């Protein structure tokens, strides 16, 4: 029963990827990312057989940070500066959606050939993790809006977190928490830079950031 729950949740993650590829507005993108953060961080509740108190606390902390604090800090960053709201795609939305679908199919095919014992009971776990990784990269490269790039980075991090939860040999929770804090601090610093970019250039289009080159 729980296995189906996991796969249902993961299909939501895959849907969120497609939504992110189709969104042209920054606030919508942030909402998709918050939703994705929440879904990704509750997955350990369904795949770990008996969780100790430490594991529960850590998973809840992940939920709060990935699902609430990170999206909220980005939301506040754009609210403060009232940023231009279009994500300035380099690759168009329809092409992006098509690429997203192709990437998900490719991830599903590839993960069938990888021999990973601990995830064999859930059909979608590894494909979803790979899709998040690759699509995060895609957003980073295919959008000129700085906020969309930060969101791409967060999706990439979500993918790595999902990959981590699939392996049984895991680091201690204190270490995992350290990783989470690093990610959080990184996003906070990016949000601060976003505000400064907006104040300096009056826009967050990264094509303005072209003065330093050879």
């Amino acid at each position: 029963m729980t296995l189906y729950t996991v796969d249902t949740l993961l299909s939501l993650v895959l849907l969120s990827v497609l939504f992110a590829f189709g969104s042209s507005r920054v606030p919508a993108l942030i909402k998709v990312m918050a939703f994705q953060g929440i879904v990704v961080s509750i997955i350990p509740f369904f795949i770990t057989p008996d969780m100790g108190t430490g594991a529960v606390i850590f998973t809840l902390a992940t939920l709060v940070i990935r699902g609430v604090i990170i999206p909220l800090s980005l939301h506040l960053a754009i609210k403060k500066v009232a940023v231009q709201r279009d994500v300035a795609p380099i690759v168009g939305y329809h092409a992006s959606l098509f690429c997203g679908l192709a990437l998900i199919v490719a991830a599903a095919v590839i993960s069938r050939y990888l021999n990973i014992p601990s995830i064999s009971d859930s059909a979608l776990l590894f494909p979803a993790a790979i899709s998040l990784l690759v699509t995060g990269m895609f957003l980073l490269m295919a959008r000129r809006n700085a906020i969309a790039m930060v969101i791409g980075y967060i999706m990439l991090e979500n993918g790595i977190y999902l990959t981590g939860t699939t392996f049984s040999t895991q680091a201690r929770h204190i270490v995992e928490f350290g990783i989470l804090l690093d990610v959080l601090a990184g996003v906070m610093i990016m949000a601060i830079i976003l505000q400064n970019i907006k104040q300096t250039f009056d826009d967050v289009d990264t094509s303005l950031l072209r003065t330093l080159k050879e």
Partner: protein
Amino acid sequence: MVELVFVTPFVTGLLAFVLPKTLSRQLLVFTGAVHLVLSLLLWKNSPRAFFAEYFAVTPEGLLSLLVISLLFFLISIYTIGYLKAHQLKSENIFTGFMLLFLSTMTMVTLSDHIMVLWIAIEATTLASAPLIYTHRSGASLEATWKYVLICSVGIAMALLGSLFLTLSMELGGVTAALSFSALSPVAGQLDPAWLKAGFIFIVVGYGTKMGLAPMHTWLPDAHSEAPSPASALLSGVLLNCAYLGIFKTNKIMVAAGLSDFSGTILIVFGLLSIVAAATYILKQTEYKRMLAYSSIENMGIIALGTGIGGLGVYGAVICMIHHSLIKSSLFLSSGNILMGYKDRLIANTGQMAKKMPKTFVAFFAGFAGISGFPPFGIFIGELFIIMAAFKTGHYLAAVIFIFSLCVIFAGFARQVMAICFGTPADTGDGPSSDLKDETFKETPGLVWPQYVLLLTSLILCFFIPDALYQTIVDAVHAIGGGLQ
């Protein structure tokens, strides 16, 4: 207690945010001195860490720690003079993050757990980003943005690589702790396919931070936009910290009998970086960017030496130590040049031998050292790497390496000659020549740190203390290197 070495600068760094300006300047130097003493104590009686699961004193860690400590102490002395001359608006933020940066880099050298190493290296990115944005200009904002985004994404790849290492443990049925020292003895049982995948991701990830081509694009921007003491730290020690991550992972690869695979990857990335540096250094118009490309070259040389193995690893470690000493002195001197001429462009400098004789001596000696002239250590390191390349049959690599060294020397020499002896171009956009010297004085604090750094490099060529020599040999022995 090992952890004290990185907890101390962390606490004083937090203090520096709230203390008055002059006090936090003194705190910077004071912490540098305390840190040096603590590091030397670690050398004397390498103690066990309190959290032995996460931290350990290793030979390669000790080497990098000593370099970090010595450099930071000298740079902190220079920083006082620099801050007096500049009157930064947000000086407390600068000194505070300098200390936090020191703390995170120290943590890198002492971590043994694979994930803790990742946490520490990512923390160095976060602690150094505000330093690059110190001048609050559009260009420095762009450099900071590139630095944070490229390095964060790069290091995320290293996290994925570290996860693959845990997967290779799982598939191999290894139940040891997730630390470098625990994995090396059982490396043979790890699943080789995932270990290889993990190594590739880790090299790409930490290689981004180390400045290996083609992931180096953030490096020239960050190094040229940061204030000179911060550039000296970035180039002198931060790059070494990232290299340490690759070095430690390579240790597991060698122990698992995959040294051919890991060696080839490191040689390819090394040569790419050296060739990229040779291509770009020829047409540099700014002296700080030129120094940054020279850092990319040296990181390439270090990766190449590590990849070749044997004597090459010894050469790589020698290059690493001397590059830190010489390059940080060059960046400090470039700070003086910037203060003297108020311009980043090589074309608007000139006649430095006359205008700033003391800085000229440091800058020119540093140039000779970094280009690999005999009395300096880089010469010995490069010679060892070339010898090792011929001995192991990497003829093509050796030829590309030697050719690029010649090109880089030619490009570097032309620019340095222009700065030191050339006549400034009177294009009109630079400041007129009689304005230049009046505002800038070469106070002892702004030149002596460079002299001490260069002198240390010079002395280390002729006389290596036994403890230091033994530690280098221990460090390179673990990845199949030695003096044969």
